[in-house]
């Protein structure tokens, strides 16, 4: 491990890579602040840039920097304007915005930055401990287990979708898997479901799909409802970045607890920064003393530190399944996985042994990224916040243009743009009806790998017997089934209880 850290240090501390981290964090903060552009859209837009860099380690460092920069930027706009650009920072606005209203915007930003820094750093340490351990276990997996593991991952994503949404999430996942079968696969030498169209021969471009699923609907919503881009009341003056020793003492235990809790929530597939931040907020409110509880929602420092720590720790945690198993647990890591595959790197248990420089330099760059966010971004925030004043008449055409560019320069194919618009409209309609879109993209990206593993185990065991013959596969598949049916069972029981039915068991 020490050797790995050394490799990581030497890769991450090259001048180029440090500049990349700084650039990534700045770009991420910049765009993350804008209303309606989440980390997924930003990363999707940045992918063509990352891919042309050629070096997978550099590319992943850039994208990871953009990722936490975006989360940081999202919390800034949550605090200053009560306009969270990112779902993971909604909980930040509960206490951050009241603090800013009370004239303590600078303090709130500092607490958010310190909490994010601590969450990210502790998360990175935990990642360093757990990822190699998990990789060692994962090396024992065969294609049958991989297939089963992907099924578990996908069903976990569906299971976390919330009450009344599980079926929709499952359907979206399957739709994504179906979309992945379009085109010519590696395993079978024949085009499938192309309907004779040449443009579908190589399948649907994943960047196109990612843009259409996330960037385009958000931009369209900004157009549809001008209120979403309305900037709240901000006097623009940010003063007093210092926090007192007493406040520091108050938030230290919160940060400690939430770093660990957030990290482990992030590791779970399907439960990302959003769930971690809400849960962190709720937990801290419940264990706080009675008089502190009253402050929650009115500008409590604890209530601000908790979600901020948790969402950054969860962002780091979500890299664990990505780097060790090659299975993304969230939309963002799914996009990162797609970028890595495009760069000819297959994340998985062999990543650590085959290309340790990627694995370790990403982890080291997380530390650098956190430091950059703390010491470079925080003082710059008052200036970066000016971007929020860009009129939407200019902002929206540019967002749309970058969306188009992202899909175009990856493929250099104008048909891709027509597909982008088509999928984007479909995605917007799906969003209207509360269909979650992240499962679709994750299904799409995992689809090919899943089918390959499925086909390989079918061939090895000459049929579907592998499910019965490999206890681990069967166990994992059983977990997947449980994950799907448990939420609906619980929802039904909750409803039965509401209707006055006595609790039978």
């Amino acid at each position, binding site marked *: 491990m020490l050797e790995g850290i050394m490799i990581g240090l030497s890769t991450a501390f090259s001048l180029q890579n440090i500049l990349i981290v700084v650039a990534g964090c700045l770009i991420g903060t910049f765009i993350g602040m804008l209303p309606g552009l989440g980390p997924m859209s930003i990363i999707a837009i940045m992918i*063509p*840039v990352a891919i*042309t860099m050629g070096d997978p380690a550099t590319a992943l460092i850039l994208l990871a920097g953009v990722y936490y920069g975006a989360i940081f930027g999202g919390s800034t706009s949550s605090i200053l304007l009560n306009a969270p650009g990112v779902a993971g920072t909604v909980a930040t606005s509960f206490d951050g915005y009241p603090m800013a209203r009370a004239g303590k915007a600078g303090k709130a930003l500092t607490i958010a930055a310190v909490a994010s820094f601590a969450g990210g750093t502790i998360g990175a340490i935990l990642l360093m401990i757990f990822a190699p351990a998990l990789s060692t276990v994962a090396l024992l997996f065969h294609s049958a287990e991989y297939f089963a593991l992907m099924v578990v991952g996908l069903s976990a994503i569906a299971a976390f979708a919330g*009450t*009344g*949404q*599980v*079926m*929709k999430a*499952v*359907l979206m996942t*399957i*739709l994504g898997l*179906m979309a992945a*079968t379009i085109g010519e696969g590696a*395993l*079978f030498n024949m085009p*499938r479901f192309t309907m004779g169209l040449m443009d579908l021969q190589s399948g649907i471009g994943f960047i196109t799909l990612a843009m259409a699923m996330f960037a385009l609907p958000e931009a*369209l*919503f900004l*157009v*549809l*409802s*001008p209120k*979403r881009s309305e900037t709240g009341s901000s006097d623009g003056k940010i003063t007093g970045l210092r926090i007192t020793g007493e406040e520091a003492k108050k938030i230290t235990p919160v940060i400690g607890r939430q770093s660990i809790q957030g990290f482990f929530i992030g590791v779970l597939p399907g439960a990302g920064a959003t769930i971690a931040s809400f849960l962190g907020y709720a937990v801290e409110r419940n264990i706080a003393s009675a008089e502190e509880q009253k402050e929650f929602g009115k500008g409590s420092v604890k209530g601000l530190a908790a979600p901020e720590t948790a969402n950054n720790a969860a962002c780091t945690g979500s890299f664990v399944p990505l780097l060790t198993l090659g299975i993304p647990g969230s939309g963002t890591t799914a996009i990162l996985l797609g970028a890595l595959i495009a760069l000819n790197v297959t994340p998985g248990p062999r990543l650590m042994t085959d290309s340790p420089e990627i694995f370790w330099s990403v982890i080291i760059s997380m530390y650098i990224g956190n430091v950059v966010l703390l010491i470079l971004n925080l003082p710059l925030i008052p200036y970066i916040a000016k971007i929020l004043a860009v009129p*939407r*008449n*200019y902002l*929206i*055409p*540019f967002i*749309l*243009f970058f969306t*188009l*560019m992202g899909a*175009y*320069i990856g493929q*250099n194919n*104008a048909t891709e*743009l*027509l597909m982008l*618009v088509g999928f*984007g*409209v479909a995605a917007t*309609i799906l*969003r*209207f*009806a*509360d*269909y979650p879109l992240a499962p679709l993209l994750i299904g799409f990206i995992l689809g090919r790998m899943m*089918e390959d593993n*499925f*086909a390989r185990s*079918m*061939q090895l065991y*000459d*049929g579907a017997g592998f499910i019965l013959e490999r206890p681990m596969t069967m166990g994992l598949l059983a977990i997947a089934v449980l994950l799907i049916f448990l939420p609906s069972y619980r*929802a*039904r029981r909750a*409803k039965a209880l509401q209707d006055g039915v006595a609790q039978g068991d």
Partner: protein
Amino acid sequence: MTLDRWIALVILVVALAYGYGAFFTMDQLLPPFMRNTPVWPSTFPKILSVMAVVISLAILLGLEKSGKGSDASGIDYKKLKEYNYGQAIALLGLMIAYALMLRPAGFIASTTGFLVLGAVVLGERKFHWLILIAVAASFGVWYLVQEVLGIFLRPWPFFLGT
């Protein structure tokens, strides 16, 4: 019928078409030597199509009580009439026009046009600034993509050569 069930119906139709493709059109094309393998190109799609049909039917018939999902986006299609859907449709049209014009008209002209018209659709009227910014942005992005990233983008219309 609510929108989510209409969507389930559409997906059901898609899944049926997909399933038809998987069950009835793919296997004849399979070369004979591949017929002995336990997994065919159509195996996975067949499983998927069955699952998709079952689940979209379940949503269509409302088997799962849909609690009002946690909609963080706060957007509601029932209020569509209050929204600027005209602008949205115009922008989508612009995007399609951009896709069709990108090759023939070249990158600079189509991008400038897209940015200017996009802003005009949204109600911008300060043309001198707008055109200046749009032209600068087009050249800037073109330079970044072509020279820094090294991806070919044809800057000028087709009649000016490459």
